[in-house]
Structure formats: C-alpha cells, structure tokens
C-alpha cells in the first residue's frame, strides 16, 4: 500500500491554482479580492479560530492512545 496524498491533493491543487493564475494573472485585483474575501476569511474562521486546535488536539490524543 503506497501513499498517494501528493498526487490527489498537492498536484491537483497546484494544477488548478495555475489555471486560475493563468486566466486572471493580468488582473491582480481580482485574484487579491477573492483571495482576501474568500480564502483568507474562510481560513480565519475555520482554521485560525479553532480547527487548527482541533487538529492538534486530535493528533495529540491519537498519538497518546496509540504509542
């Protein structure tokens, strides 16, 4: 059994971001507007204000119970 996380997430992510970049690259304000109001705000709500801790705490607990 071989891990394929990079192919499924990392590579696909890079590919679609390239596509967006290619098609809006000369209109940086669109990229910035969507980045600031969608990506950053979702990240702030979902990640910075809680789920980073959820991940850390879940990882710690799994580590403790399985070592």
């Amino acid at each position, binding site marked *: *059994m*071989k*891990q*394929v*996380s990079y*192919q*499924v*997430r990392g*590579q*696909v*992510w890079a*590919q*679609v*971001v390239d*596509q*967006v970049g290619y*098609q*809006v690259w*000369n*209109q940086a304000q*669109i990229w910035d*507007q*969507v*980045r600031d*109001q*969608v*990506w*950053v*705000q*979702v*990240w702030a*709500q*979902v*990640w910075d*204000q*809680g*789920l980073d*801790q*959820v*991940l*850390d*705490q*879940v*990882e*710690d*607990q*799994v*580590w403790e*119970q*399985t070592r």
Partner: protein
Amino acid sequence: MLDKLNDEQVKGIEVCRDKWIKVGLQTGPVDRDAAIVAANKAYKCAGLEPPREVVFCSSPLDMDKKIREISNNEHNFLSSYGFANCWSGWVAFIDYFHTYTDVKNLEAFEGLRDLSYNCGFVSFFDTHVFISERPEYIKMDDTGRTHCENGPAIRYADGFEVHIWHGVRVPKSWITDGPDIDQALHNSNLELRRVASEIIGWAKILDHYQAEVIDEDADPQIGTLLRVNIPEVGEEYFLKVLCGTGRTFAIPVPEQDDEGKRINTALAANAWTYGIKPWEYKPEVRT
C-alpha cells in the same frame, strides 16, 4: 481571460465564503454514498485508478487502527492523513472561480471539493482510501478556542473524545473529577499547571495550603491579601476578592508594585490589578 467581476460575481464572493465556512465547521455523520463517489472522482481527477476499497472509520483513532492493520504497520493516521473538511479555505478559493466565473479547466478540483462536503479526515493510498467520520460536536469558548468545562470539547460517535480547557488539552479526569491539587501543582508542564490552577480555582488552592493573611480589608470587594508557600513553587502572593457575581476568586499579585514598593495591603494589591495607585482606587463592582 477574466478581467473584471460583474455585480453577480461580486455578490458571489460572500455566498461562497459563507458556504465554505459552514462546510469547514461541519459536524455529524458523513454521507457515505456521496463520499465514495467523491473519493473516486478525486482519484480520477489526479489521473489515478480509483481505490479498490473505501474504508470508513468512526473517528481518527479508528482510522489509525485500520490504516495500521491494512498496511501491516507501515503507515498510520498521523503520518498519512492528506485532507479534511477543515481545509475548506483552500477549496473555497478555487470553488469561487469554478462556480462564479468562466475560468476554464478547473474540473480537476471537483473531487477535492466534493470530498470536503462529505468527509472528516481522509488518507489517500493507491489501493485504499480511508475516510473518517466528522466529530459529533466541537465545543468552543467565545473566543473560538476549543473548550468545555463539563465534558469533552470534541467527541466522535464511537466515543473517541478530547478534553480541552480554553484550547489546552487536559486529562479527562481534570474535567470529570477536577485535578488533584498536589498533582496539578507539581505537573512539569507549566501551561498545564496554570490550567489546573484555573480549573481548581486559586481560592481553593489557597485554602488547601493554608495561606497566611497579610491584610484583610473590611470591604470584601477590596479583599484579603494572602501569602502562601506552594511546594516546589515557593512563596506567592494572592488577592482573594468577592466579585460582583457573588463568587470569590483569587488573583496572583507580585510582592512589589511596578515601582518596587512592597504591596502590603489588600487595597494596594487591588489597585495594582488595575494599574493604579492605592489612593486612586475606588472600588465599584469587580466582575
């Protein structure tokens, strides 16, 4: 080429943001049929054969167990999870362009998008994909830190749970029974020692160690200045006060004020907590 957003596209920014915040914070059972379709699509989008088996797991701990079993201990949850619904910030950005604009060739992203809707943690392997359920609930304090003072802050349906006090993971017994005062104050982890003291309450700790009264003000809202010798910590000073809600609590105070003058009255200690001089302090109600 996209060179300007129209009114509908601008409105879509807010809709897209709110949708993905909801997905990222979602709890409750995954839709397993939809998750299988999404996982197969994610592999196809990556140019891979679909996994032979989709293994559903009731929690991250169960996922760890199943990954170890199937991989003969070559892999585990901590070394392998590759995606989860809480990564929705990444997904939201691409979904906006995919949904609201005619930016082309974003189909490869649909698998990850659909997995976000339909999974907790995911680990991708060539022959197997492991998908964990989401938590039954995640409890947070008003600042967004994971927290619950009378039970687990995170709980999965199979009973896997995590006890957390304002963002710091603590032993289950600290929440269910309260920390043992001696054990808590001898904990080598300073942060855990602080948390234990918060859970127990300094007022109880001071009673336990029979703190010595240095000065007791007639006004209980100004309080009592105490000195206590805590084993392995040393001599500490506390102000024990009655707050406006009728609870007694204790605040650690220094031996000297910011100008190096010894704090020897409850009034001086109380004034120090507000950053003012004793003669400037006129108590109203401390809450």
